[in-house]
């Protein structure tokens, strides 16, 4: 473990208000507490189908204002109909389609993933992209207090939407915010 000197750490509780995130700068480090959801390729496609066809999303999605979408397809252990996340690091964000529309529709303030999202409009949508280090799946097991809900389990355990209550989930690096990006591409 090597100590760092120049990075600012923020501990934030979900849902966040706009004022709490507007001053976040790239390279800041965040630890999140509260409820967020996982969503990857198939969940993004399905949310968009609902939005496009004016179908009403499950009620649990209506309460995500100020929350976070985590690009993650976890390993789930099922025992007596109880689920546990065994390992749950981030997946490549660039694959997710229609994120700007989804962010606007649900009122999302954080996207968590790896590799960044070229088309994410952080400025206009007041959303912050947080990079969680790829491959660090096991350690997430320690940061999840509980699974509060699962939607769309028919998509499979990896692609379903998991509602997770997290505690000190981080270090999450502010990689895209206010139109700026840390990616070297």
């Amino acid at each position: 473990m090597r100590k760092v000197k120049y990075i600012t750490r923020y501990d934030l509780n979900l849902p966040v208000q706009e004022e709490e995130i507007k001053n976040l700068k790239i390279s800041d480090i965040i630890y999140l507490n509260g409820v967020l959801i996982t969503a990857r390729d198939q969940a993004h496609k399905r949310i968009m189908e609902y939005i496009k066809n004016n179908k009403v999303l499950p009620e649990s999605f209506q309460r995500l204002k100020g929350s976070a979408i985590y690009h993650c397809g976890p390993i789930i252990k099922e025992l007596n109909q109880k689920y546990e996340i065994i390992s749950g690091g981030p997946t490549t964000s660039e694959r997710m389609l229609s994120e700007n529309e989804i962010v606007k529709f649900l009122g999302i303030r954080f996207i968590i993933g790896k590799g960044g999202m070229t088309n994410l409009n952080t400025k206009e949508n007041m959303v912050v992209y947080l990079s969680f280090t790829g491959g660090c799946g096991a350690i997430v097991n320690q940061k999840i207090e509980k699974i509060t809900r699962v939607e769309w389990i028919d998509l499979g355990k990896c692609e379903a939407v998991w509602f997770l209550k997290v505690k000190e989930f981080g270090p999450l690096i502010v990689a895209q915010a206010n139109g700026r990006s840390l990616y070297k591409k």
Partner: protein
Amino acid sequence: MEEKTSIKIKIEEALFDSIKRATTIVPLEIEMALSNLLKEEDSEIAVVQLNLMLENFKYGAAKEIPICQDTGVLNFFIDLGNEFPIMSNFKSIIEKAVLKATKTIPLRSNSVDPITNENPENNLGFNVPPIYLNIIENSSVLKITVLPKGGGAENVSRLFMLNPSNGLEKFQDIIIDVIKEAGGMPCPPIILGIGLGGDATLSMVLAKKALLRPFNQRHARKDIAKIEIELLDKINQLNIGVMGLGGKITCLDVRIEIAMRHPASFPVGLIVQCYSHRYASFEINEKGEIYNEI
């Protein structure tokens, strides 16, 4: 007959064990490489992440859970001595071990029907897992290596069919462009396996097999070793850094394997691997004794 059955059971157990090690433990050489990087790195963003990577390796190994949730497509490399008593049934032995590993470790099921999107949640199905069989002459030993290959890094893999007139001159720049474009997506610092020559299929297989070479072991031929070092240096000037967020090191190692090519073709196979390069293997002899577990 009984002896053969007992060897089969031993292979199945050793396979399960190898799958478990390959998904929950990172080889020491990788942990060392990242620890060394931690000392050299100037970027604090890289330092924060390297700290987490090393902590995650420890946590996964201690809890015996997959260090990355992407337990990949399990690739099996079989080196079969032609005097080893069992010459068949490997597919079914492997399938049994994969099924058990998926349920009990557990692994994520990464086998999805490309047409219907159905996932049988068992890591099995049409033509998976991939098995590469190599017959070794004058040997009575069976060696099996398991390489879980995650999606993020694999998505950056490529095949190039270059013009033989300038393929050798051009291939380095073409690979550099791919790595640059990919940025943080393959989970850098990456390891590259490259197959030069052969035909389209062979170059890709060689590229994948190159990943199994020990760390920093240069190709035996000096002209090839020189290209490996050149390419490694060039990629490390891109400043992509840990997870694409900037820093000194983007690539940990470049490994090139070659094969004779067709006069009209210059195939270049590129297989990209993430920093969390996990694999495990075992050897078993004709008496059913298991040794050399890595």
